[in-house]
């Protein structure tokens, strides 16, 4: 039956041409390797983790090793140190034979730690929220199809390129009691002067304000990227539906910025946990203005000024757990959205 469908090509035409070219330098196909111990381990690893696990290893392994040692190894080591009683100068080092939770008991009863935890919490939440709101407003303004958009954006983002140390110098001067810009501006409307950095009850908010100045440009950039990803017809559809501008943003646009909000918040919260540099530079020392002591500054002070190494490590672990509470859910969220 099959023969009735004439094949269009006769096979006997085929020449040995391809063999000749092979002779002048074609690839000799690699023979199959005999699986030795290395080969078998390799197969086993590939089967366990997926194809190319071994072949791609030379590329990612050095980076992984450095990170594993410096980040995760160091955290484990830090955890162990926090279980010792290590303190003071000298090369003796921690005594690893006697591990207990003494430092943690001490930390939970230390009013400095509790106080710093509260301040950390206020700083993280206050800073993140204000920065997100300011950043979102900036993004919405810049996204209105303005002229010189790039210039405006560049200026709003400029503080982000500065070091915490530089920002601290600038705001130290801005907040100066007699000659600072803030008090002089407030003076023109009959307020102040206020001792921004000396008054314990407002100093933390002064710090948050300065940090918002530095980071709101970052939030703006993230939100702008989010806004640009929303198709134009969303705006048009809302217009056609007769929504007012405010309503359109509130009901249609802002809900679509959830992803941007989440990634920006994580970054900002973690920045706030690390705000050590700023507070250190404000006073050029380990003890930040009263009322702004956070876990990050307390940890460095305990370890490097008071040489209470184990106690500093304990505070560091508390700080790390706080960071983990932020990062963990974020990673799960990213995994669910297939971004990992």
């Amino acid at each position, binding site marked *: *039956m*099959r*023969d*009735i*469908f*004439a*094949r*269009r*090509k006769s*096979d006997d*035409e*085929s*020449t*040995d*041409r*391809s*063999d000749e*070219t092979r002779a*002048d*330098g*074609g*690839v000799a*196909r*690699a023979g*199959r390797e005999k699986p030795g111990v290395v080969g078998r381990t390799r197969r086993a690893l590939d089967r366990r983790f997926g*194809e190319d696990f071994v072949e791609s290893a030379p590329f990612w392994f050095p980076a992984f090793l450095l990170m594993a040692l410096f980040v995760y190894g160091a955290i484990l080591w830090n955890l162990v140190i926090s279980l010792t009683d290590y303190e003071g100068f000298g090369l003796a080092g921690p005594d690893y034979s006697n591990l207990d939770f003494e430092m943690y008991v001490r930390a939970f009863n230390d009013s400095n730690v509790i106080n710093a935890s509260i301040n950390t919490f206020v700083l993280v939440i206050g800073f993140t929220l204000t920065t997100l709101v300011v950043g979102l407003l900036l993004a919405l303004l810049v996204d209105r199809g303005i002229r010189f958009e790039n210039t405006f954006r560049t200026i709003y983002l400029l503080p982000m390129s500065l070091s915490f140390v530089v920002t601290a110098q600038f705001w130290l001067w801005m907040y100066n009691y007699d000659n600072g810009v803030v008090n002089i501006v407030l003076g023109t409307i009959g307020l102040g002067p206020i001792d921004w950095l000396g008054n314990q009850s407002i100093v933390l908010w002064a710090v948050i304000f300065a940090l918002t100045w530095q980071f709101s440009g970052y939030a703006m950039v993230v939100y702008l990227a989010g806004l640009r990803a929303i198709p134009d017809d969303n705006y048009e559809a809302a217009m056609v539906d007769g929504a007012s501008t405010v309503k359109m943003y509130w009901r249609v646009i802002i809900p679509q910025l959830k992803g941007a909000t989440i990634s920006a918040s994580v970054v900002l919260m973690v920045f706030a946990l690390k705000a050590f540099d700023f507070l250190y530079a404000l006073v050029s020392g380990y003890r930040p203005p009263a009322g702004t002591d956070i876990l990050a500054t307390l940890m460095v002070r305990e370890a490097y000024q008071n040489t209470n190494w184990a106690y500093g490590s304990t505070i560091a672990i508390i700080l790390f757990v706080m960071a983990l509470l932020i990062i963990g859910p974020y990673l799960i969220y990213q995994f669910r959205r297939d971004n990992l």
Partner: protein
Amino acid sequence: MAELELDSITKVFHDGDEEIVAVDDVSLTIEDGEFLVVVGPSGCGKSTTLRMVAGLESITSGAIRLGDDVINDVKSQDRDIAMVFQSYALYPHMTVQENMSFGLEESTGLSDDEIGARVEETASTMGIGDLLERRPDELSGGQQQRVALGRSIVRDPEVFLMDEPLSNLDAKLRAQMRTELQRLQEELDVTTMYVTHDQTEAMTMGDRIAILNEGELQQISSPLECYHAPANRFVADFIGEPGMNFFDVDREGDELVSELFTYPLSDWMVDDLGDTSELVFGIRPEDVSLVDVASAEHDFEAVVEVVEPMGDENTVHLHFAGHPDSSIVASVGGLQNVSQGEELAAHIPEEAIHLFDRQTGKVLHNRRLDSEEAVDATL
């Protein structure tokens, strides 16, 4: 020398705890120098099959042989296989010349002069000799396509793999490249596996076509055999545009009975059917002819619903008289005058019908071919 054999290969993907069988026990052999087209609806496993041959996808079970060697564990870079991708996959930062030399530089010990000469020779046969200094983003889609082809040809590989290489071209260019590809393949005489979802490409280009559905090989044979002698209902449905008409029928003695019509069978038909009584009745649109009145036993009264004039022929959508929900499509000559609403009769000749087992989909009877005797006579 370079016969490509797929020996019951299977690919299982894991998605969490779920197992997805993308390719299910497919066996086929592509003879040396043969042009095999693998065709099927999207998600049928044709691309996965191709990628397993290329070494870009691991093989869950089964063996792939190139010549006498099993190549399952040979890395793709050592397989001496060239592939043309749907996106062309040209290296954007390299000129055409560099794109074409890359494979030779990486896989052979040829000197720069030899490589240059080979690239130039291939480029001029491909008609891209004057584009050698350009970069991919300075080329039109058709030119990029040629470069992608040239890049694989210049390496003179054992096997060519092509993954829907024409799908990004516009209709006219596609038709042109189709013939050109065929000519090239015939000239080079390289074993070729060509994956497409386009049945025109499948019908016109391949020496044989392999039809896949849901990971399983449905049929592998010459294009005309697939068309006229499909192995099952899926193939009959997939090949041909407009598609075959199908009706569920029950066999009662020497009649096929459906709610739409009763179709009497001749004795020679009855022998093919065996005991199966639940059948699917198939007829290709071009085998249905339209006559004014039902005058023979295989004529059925029908009403014209829509006429789509294509110029050379008219595609006529009808329903059986008294059954406005039914539907049958006929292709008739472009000059035959049929108009909407017209009442006439559809003639369904007995030689042209196909019958399938309704349960398994397997063919029980294929159409008779007039050419059967004619071809036999010439051989």
